[in-house]
């Protein structure tokens, strides 16, 4: 059953240089208890999509958001800020890329972890503290009972990201949006953190929308994956299908530019740069960089079903399929 359905989401920003098209018709679905990876290079609209779901964009200033973001049966984009405040933290939570700045430097760790539930449930001080310790323990903070009263500067980057995870999960949300949570960390810490996240996900059943540019992380963590390019979803499939039979030329190029341990093959960079979003175009956004582009690519490719779990937006995906 679909928990979150994003339907034709568009986000544009008014900038001094003109209207910037950041997200151009994203369609995506996240089911209950599922981990979906949202992959793409910097600037492709991943984070903007996440913030649009949470309604964190400056909508009354520069951002224009259209389309539908259906949460259970209700369109989040139609909700008032008061209603969103009620949903944030309790139903939908989010964690950010930089753990060093995501914690308030002058607030005790424990108070931050339990801030959401404490407002909603009117917990007593002792109950809140106990819950905070419990959550810090869950995310793997050693000696949680002692550290609950400390301030963020005494924590390392990896430990802070664990605290941030505890902060987001303490409200028992149904969906956690993780915006590149491990990007700022080194690889061993990243592996530990992903392992912990997977364990917690299995225990709590929280669905996760995991945003990353790292395909290795997707392979390790996710059930399904959507590949985003220039504000559009170009391919989505189960992780196994996508890695075994990528259909979209961009997905293939992305896989070819990722190192595989043990192989000494030369990595192939993708030539050119993605469109800048200031100059709207009607055709396939990848056509300029695509080795397989044909004149028909001037028309927008529809997102077509390859199998019931695999969809791709490319005019030539059938010809280009693996034999």
């Amino acid at each position, binding site marked *: 059953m679909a928990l979150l359905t994003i339907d034709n989401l568009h986000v544009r920003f008014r900038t001094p240089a003109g209207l910037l098209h950041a997200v151009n018709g994203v369609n995506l679905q996240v089911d209950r208890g599922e981990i979906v990876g949202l992959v793409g290079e910097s600037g492709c609209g991943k984070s903007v999509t996440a913030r649009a779901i949470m309604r964190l964009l400056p909508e009354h200033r520069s951002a224009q958001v259209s389309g539908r973001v259906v949460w259970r049966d209700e369109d989040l984009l139609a909700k008032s800020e008061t209603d969103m405040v009620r949903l944030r933290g*309790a139903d939908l939570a989010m964690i950010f890329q930089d753990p060093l700045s995501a914690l308030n430097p002058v607030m005790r760790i424990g108070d931050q972890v339990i801030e959401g539930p404490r407002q909603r449930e009117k917990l007593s001080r002792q109950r809140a503290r106990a819950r905070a310790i419990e959550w810090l323990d869950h995310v793997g903070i050693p000696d949680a009972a002692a550290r609950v009263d400390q301030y963020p500067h005494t924590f390392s980057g990896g430990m802070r990201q664990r605290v941030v995870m505890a902060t987001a999960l303490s409200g028992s949300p149904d969906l956690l949006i993780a915006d590149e949570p491990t990007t700022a960390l080194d690889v061993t810490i990243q592996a530990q953190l992903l392992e912990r996240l997977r364990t917690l996900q299995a225990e709590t059943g929280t669905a996760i929308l995991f945003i990353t540019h790292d395909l290795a992380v997707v392979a390790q963590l996710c059930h399904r994956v959507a590949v985003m390019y220039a504000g559009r979803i170009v391919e989505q499939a189960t992780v196994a299908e996508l890695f075994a039979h990528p259909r979209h030329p961009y997905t293939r190029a992305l896989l070819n530019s990722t190192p595989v341990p043990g192989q000494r093959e030369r990595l192939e960079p993708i030539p050119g740069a993605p469109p800048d979003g200031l100059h709207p175009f009607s055709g396939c956004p990848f056509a300029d960089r695509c080795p397989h582009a044909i004149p028909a690519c001037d028309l927008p490719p529809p997102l077509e079903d390859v199998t019931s779990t695999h969809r791709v937006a490319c005019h030539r995906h059938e010809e280009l399929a693996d034999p």
Partner: protein
Amino acid sequence: MAHRFHIFRQHRVAFVALIVIVGYALIAVLAPWLAPRDPYSMSGDYPLVAPGTAGYWLGSDPFGRDILSRLMYGARTSLMVGSIAAGLALVLGTIVGVCAGYFGRHIDAVLSRFMEVLFSFPDILLALIIMAILGPSTVNVMLAIGVVYTPIFARIARASTLRVKRAAYVEAARTMGARTPRILIRHILPNISGPLMVQTTLSFAFAILAEAALSFLGLGVEPDAPSWGIMLNEGKDWMQHGWWVAVFPGLAITLAVLSFNVLGDGLRDLIEDTG
């Protein structure tokens, strides 16, 4: 190394200033017990006696009132006016500045323009206008000085809020479902408090000076109340006959203002050191 020594010395001076301020505060609180004489009682037998004579350690004024006792009671006036005026400016300025910085747009435009108008008056002139309208009294001095120094706090609070409101932890708090009042009080306010504390200490010095100036001009506290400014005013006419009447209140003001300034600078260094 030289840098560290410099900071150490800076803090040591600030520490001395703190001790002086605590000394002033103790004298102010304990004035009724410490003062050798009644600060109001006049004595026709001992007008304008020199320091040291007949138990008048710092001499007496032309009405035979004990200078030392009046200075001690004057510390009460100065510190009370200073703390309440600086506190008022802190509270008003912070509310205005945080609202302007956080909500932005029209609210910012209206509040900031209003603060700029206040700011554009010379301090003492604005205080004089307010005092002339309200009439001289201790409460009115506090109000006037508080209003005069509000824009400085508003400006600092606004600038700091603009910086802090873009911090990731503020956005993170929003995603956890924190409401605006909570974000302002728990996340913004504690993170902008450093510069505001420094400004409060410095404003304390300004407020003491402003109180003395207003009282000197006769638009401050009630005329018979012991105030350093009033004492200075009375003393100036007698400089040739009794220098002590004006010099001691002048020294009291100088030392207090200097101490608050040094402490404020020390606090600023400390905050900048620790980031």
